[in-house]
């Protein structure tokens, strides 16, 4: 595809292109940018037509962009999952996952730590809704923050805690935090479907280089999966 685009670009440069070269090039660019990333372009670049130079070129994608960094999968034998050596090149981080624990009970929670810090440097706040009940809970000076709801061993089969964790400006100078939103069901009765909104605060201004997700009890089951994404801020 790039070869075709390059050939047409050359025709345009030589003045031998079709009567409407701009629209032709635009169509080719759109088609190309919908294809998987090409090795001719750097990461995050899009193909663009430079009208003044009469050439096709790769340009930085100034738009908001999300790139997957890594995937972690539970094994049934580990209660801690750590994303280590996180690149410091994005503006924000996002973790999307589906978790089930093999600890006691039907419902549980996933904890969060940054940079391996297990000292009492975390505060957390929970807001939960199920049926018509709304409740809140919080704690300060904890050795981890609470971040996602999850199902546990006595929940019905195939019931997981599904959610997203946002970590804004993870390399910035401010005290760091994370926000986790999750939904899980541990039965089919009214009230056994919960949504939980967590805020976790870390008393540190350090750039975040690792994120650990910790089962409150038991291990992450082998169907548990977390994907870590990096978010570019855009122009």
């Amino acid at each position: 595809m790039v070869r075709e685009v390059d050939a047409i670009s050359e025709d345009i440069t030589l003045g031998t292109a079709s009567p409407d070269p701009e629209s032709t090039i635009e169509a080719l660019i759109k088609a190309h940018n919908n294809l998987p990333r090409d090795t001719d372009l750097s990461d995050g670049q899009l193909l663009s037509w430079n009208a003044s130079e009469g050439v096709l070129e790769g340009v930085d994608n100034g738009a908001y962009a999300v790139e997957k960094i890594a995937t972690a999968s539970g094994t049934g034998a580990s209660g801690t999952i750590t994303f280590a050596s996180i690149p410091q090149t994005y503006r924000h981080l996002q973790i999307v996952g589906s978790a089930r624990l093999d600890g006691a009970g039907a419902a549980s929670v996933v904890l969060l730590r940054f940079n391996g810090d297990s000292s009492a440097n975390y505060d957390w706040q929970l807001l939960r809704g199920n049926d018509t009940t709304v409740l809140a809970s919080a704690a300060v000076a904890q050795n981890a923050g609470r971040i996602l709801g999850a199902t546990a061993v006595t929940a019905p089969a195939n019931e997981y805690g599904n959610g997203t964790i946002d970590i804004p400006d993870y390399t910035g100078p401010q005290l760091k935090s994370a926000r986790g939103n999750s939904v899980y069901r541990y039965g089919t009765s009214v009230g056994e479907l919960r949504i939980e909104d967590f805020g976790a605060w870390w008393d540190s201004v350090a750039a975040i280089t690792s994120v650990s997700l910790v089962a409150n009890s038991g291990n992450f089951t082998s169907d548990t999966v977390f994907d870590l994404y990096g978010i570019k801020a855009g122009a």
Partner: protein
Amino acid sequence: MNNKIIVDCTTGAQVEEPLTDDEVAEREAAAANPPPEPVDRLAALEERVNAAAALAEQANATAQDVAQAMKPTR
């Protein structure tokens, strides 16, 4: 729960290795002293209101008994 999973974000490789003794001790300490569970504050408040109403009813009945007992007899 004696293992931990580490994903190297530069390579994408996932490895699983045993927890260190310190990490095992820390997990055991956390299990022995878990964070507070969420409390349904509305339900707790309703319970207190109902208890107060029962007390008021009981106090009213007692006051009526006292008033009745204090009525002059002929």
